């Protein structure tokens, strides 16, 4: 007997042989999280958060994550704007610019940290002058954490906003122009509100990436409790000295990530990123 439900006649079309690796793949992604959740000392959760430096690193992480998100918004939205409107430029220039913006996305964060050190360190390309003229020494300070996180997270914001700008109807800008709006007013009152969902999505992704940043931060900003020891670094260190604290920090980071996924559900989980 055929099935009574009006099922797609092609069925799922999944060859039987794929089920095993597919199931293993899923288990590979999910089991570590289950192992982590299983090890979290739920009973002492509160006391660990209060007594160890979990709270301190959490506070610092939030502060730096928010700082980095603001830096990325202030610099990244205009950059996305230029990228989205570079259609009239020479293709080599346009593609080169986009490639440059994408580099931090694919580059190992440690390399980013070293590069920042060589730029802003005391003997760095710019750091030399910052030190000589203003007595500013950035490495191993809280601002250095924000700089590292911004460096790594900015592409997320730029690409999200650029996508939104490309999708926005430019004829609305024509309409605003014929009504007498200046370019700045068009940006502020028309285009920015139109791409607001993209900016929000980009900012959330950017924040999530900043919060998890490890490699660039520990390289450029180091590991000073309360100054540069963010949650991922604290978790890594605690694993040797105080494993339960490491599990708790990991849980907090995991919860934040899931929160981001939840905030992005319409864009990512349903595959509507384009």
């Amino acid at each position, binding site marked *: 007997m055929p099935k009574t439900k009006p099922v797609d006649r092609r069925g799922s079309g999944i060859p039987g042989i794929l089920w095993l690796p597919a199931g293993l793949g899923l288990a590979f992604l999910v089991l570590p999280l289950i192992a982590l959740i299983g090890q979290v000392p739920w009973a002492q959760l509160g006391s660990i958060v209060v007594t160890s430096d979990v709270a301190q690193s959490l506070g610092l992480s939030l502060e730096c994550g928010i700082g980095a998100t603001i830096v990325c918004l202030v610099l990244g939205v205009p950059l996305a704007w230029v990228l989205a409107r570079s259609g009239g430029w020479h293709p080599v220039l346009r593609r080169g610019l986009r490639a440059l913006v994408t580099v931090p996305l694919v580059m190992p964060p440690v390399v980013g940290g070293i590069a920042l050190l060589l730029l802003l360190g005391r003997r760095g390309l710019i750091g030399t002058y910052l030190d000589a003229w203003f007595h500013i020494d950035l490495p191993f300070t809280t601002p250095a954490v924000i700089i590292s996180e911004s460096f790594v997270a900015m592409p997320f914001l730029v690409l999200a906003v650029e996508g939104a700008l490309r999708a926005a109807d430019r*004829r*609305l800008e024509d309409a605003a*122009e*014929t*009504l*007498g*709006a*200046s370019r700045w*007013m068009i940006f502020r009152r028309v285009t920015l509100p*139109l791409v607001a969902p993209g900016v929000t999505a980009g900012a959330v992704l950017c924040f999530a990436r900043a919060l998890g940043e490890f490699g660039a931060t520990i390289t450029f900003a180091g590991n000073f409790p309360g100054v540069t020891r963010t949650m991922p670094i604290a978790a890594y260190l605690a694993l040797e000295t105080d494993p339960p604290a490491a599990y708790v920090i990991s849980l907090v980071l995991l919860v934040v990530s899931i929160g981001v996924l939840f905030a992005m559900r319409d864009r990512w989980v349903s595959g509507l990123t384009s």
Partner: protein
Amino acid sequence: MSALSTRASGLDAVIVVERPAFRLDLALAVPPGTVTAVVGPNGSGKSTTLRALAGLLRMTSGHIRLGDRVLDEGDLHVTAASRGAGVVFQDYLLFPHLSALENVAFGLHAHGMPHKAALGQAREWLDRFALADFAGIRPGQLSGGQAQRVALARAMVLEPELLLLDEPMAALDASTRVEVRAELAAKLRSYGGSTVLVTHDPTDALALADEVVVLDHGSVVQRGPVRAVARAPVNDYVAGLFGSGAA
């Protein structure tokens, strides 16, 4: 020449736009209080004409004058933002994130009017266009006819001397078209400036315009009072256009 010319009135334009494999060459004279329809198929140069008049496109040569203001001539080009032509775009292009009221107030804000005064004046125009109940509604929830009225109010609130309409009926479904067209005709009759209407549909020209210019591949095929053109088309192309549309 200039010494002899009398003070111009209304729109006086010679629009020349050259592109690879395309040349638009169109003269328009639209006295205040009259409507000229530019009719032609897609690719005939209608949209280019409108964009040139609105200041959104720089012409290759020619001139655009409005009353005693020169908007385009030689190197002189008054930008779209400062020339103040009222434009009702195809699909209306209302700002989707602003309410109907804020859409109408947008141009007043852009011209520096304080917030409250702008909203007050926008509300008057919504009242005049029987849209008072829709002031707080976003464009997405308006019907086609309502959206057209908001778009017209948004363009006319600045009391432009030149009003440009780009396919004002194209976004409407057939059932509402007749009624909306009649409403629009009434509004255009009471408007004191020069109106240029661009459409592919001769019915719009018959209902809304005084003069018609039939455009094909960038050149004028025929021009004159709407009914005269409909009655005595110069060639099969114009005859076909009006024969099919003049129901």
